[in-house]
């Protein structure tokens, strides 16, 4: 438990370092977390570490009281019953639609086949974007290296998260549309939000002040 009895789900990966920096700033000691790459549970300070996409699962079930994860994860898992309390501002990325440079293969697929094939790790965000813009698309869910899919002819385009666009460029892909900007968010379990209201509000105040 952290000083105020809250269990915090911390995302490993791209948001890890900035999240630990934030926790340090609000007085939660993360020395042990930083020193242990493999350990997952840090009971003394109330921190559990996991993949960002697992954070809503733990928080919804109450296995963690609060958690930090990307808005992309929350949008993809929009049916999760968690409170979204605060935009933490860091971890800024853009969800984009991209395809190989030059003449856009998605245009030709749309015109001649009536449908575009899209590879993504975010099938629901991507499907929602195409539905909202009145276009037909077929989603191909992949687990990693989305950039490979259009290069091999698996798909016409991809929907993926990009921070700087470097990986896209290095693979000869260009951004065709920006779908949504995302940042890190602080979320809370609905029961903990009521039963531990004082501790959560106090932590919110410290985060806002940091």
């Amino acid at each position, binding site marked *: 438990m952290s000083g105020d009895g809250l269990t915090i789900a911390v995302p490993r990966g791209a948001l890890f370092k900035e999240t630990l920096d934030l926790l340090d700033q609000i007085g939660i000691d993360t020395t042990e977390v930083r020193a242990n790459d493999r350990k997952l549970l840090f009971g003394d300070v109330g921190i559990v570490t996991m993949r960002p996409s697992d954070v809503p699962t733990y928080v*919804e*079930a*109450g*296995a963690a009281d609060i958690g930090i994860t990307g808005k992309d994860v929350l949008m993809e898992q*929009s*049916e999760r*019953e*968690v*409170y*979204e*309390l*605060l*935009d933490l501002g860091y971890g800024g990325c853009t969800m984009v639609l991209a395809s190989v440079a030059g003449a856009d293969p998605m245009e030709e697929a749309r015109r001649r086949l009536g449908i575009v094939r899209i590879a993504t790790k975010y099938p629901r965000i991507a499907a929602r974007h195409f539905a909202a813009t009145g276009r037909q698309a077929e989603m191909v869910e992949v687990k990693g290296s989305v950039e490979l899919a259009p290069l091999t002819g698996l798909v016409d385009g991809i929907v993926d998260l990009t921070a700087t666009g470097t990986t896209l460029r290095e693979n000869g892909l260009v951004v065709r549309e920006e779908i949504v900007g995302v940042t890190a*968010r602080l979320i809370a*379990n*609905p*029961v*903990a*939000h*009521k*039963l531990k*209201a*004082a501790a959560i509000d106090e932590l919110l105040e410290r985060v806002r002040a940091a």
Partner: protein
Amino acid sequence: MSDPTGTAPAAAPTPTIHPIPSGTRDVLPDEMHELRAITATALRVFAERGFGEVSTPALEYEETLARGDVGGAPPAYRLFDEHGNVLVLRSDMTVPIARLVATRFTDAELPLRLCYAAHAYRAVRAKRGLPRELLQVGIELIGAPAPAGTAEALTVLCDVLDAIGFHDYRIGLGDVGLYQTLLDACVTPSHPPTARERVLHELVTRDFVGLEREVGALGLGREQTELLVRVPQLRGGPEVLSALDGPAGEAADGLRGVYELLEARVAERLILDLGLVRELGYYTGAVFQVYDPALGTPIGRGGRYDELLGRFGRALPAVGFALNAQPLHEALMRERA
């Protein structure tokens, strides 16, 4: 059974697997014994408080449920009878009891106190291991307006949770009309017609970041913006109510009225929650949720449904709650662990 010596157990006979529908389950004697103890205790307490048990058909005509507006609890199963009528397995007991009261109790003395232990059937969100078949125990108190009827329902709720053996439960109490009243005071005809809905959507989906964005988009003054963003995040003891003034203070009059009627032992269980919103289409005033620290989701819910009976032709104010037996059982087991 685990083997204390750690050796492999003797090979068990291979079971013959006959699947059951997704979201349903069998209950074996050990669990059933404990579940039965919970439902029997609940029914005993209800009876002591003057509630008579009723049973209604598991199947209702689809139009009955549609009349009741069960938006937040969609039915899981629909079927046809031999005449081509569309039937659904009830998604809760409140709508069937509203139908029953309108049909069978035309000249009964009010208030009516009815209770049940019965299964309900709900559509679920995918891949969450959620049950489609729920065993519920609950009451409906019909013809008892706010605030006294609400206070009685909350008192019976505490009685039953105490009798089952819970120590650490709390009850979140909110009012679905409260935020609507605040919106009425702030949203004007000059705002886009969807503005209200967009703000409410963020609140219903529990997104306070989105709430701040949508309220910001209304272009209100600092005070009103602050009101619409801050008030739904307030929850706690009676100090939450005393901190409100102006339009928010008036909007909270309903909650204050209920709170003042409660015995101390009930009042101390309450968490006043100004962000609690309508989960079922028919709720009108006070709404409540039951929490136990041992579980991450509410173990029961209830509220006022003053307009539901009217839809069945007999306008009566009413309030009720339902507790889900399986989560109750799990929370009890963990509380005692």
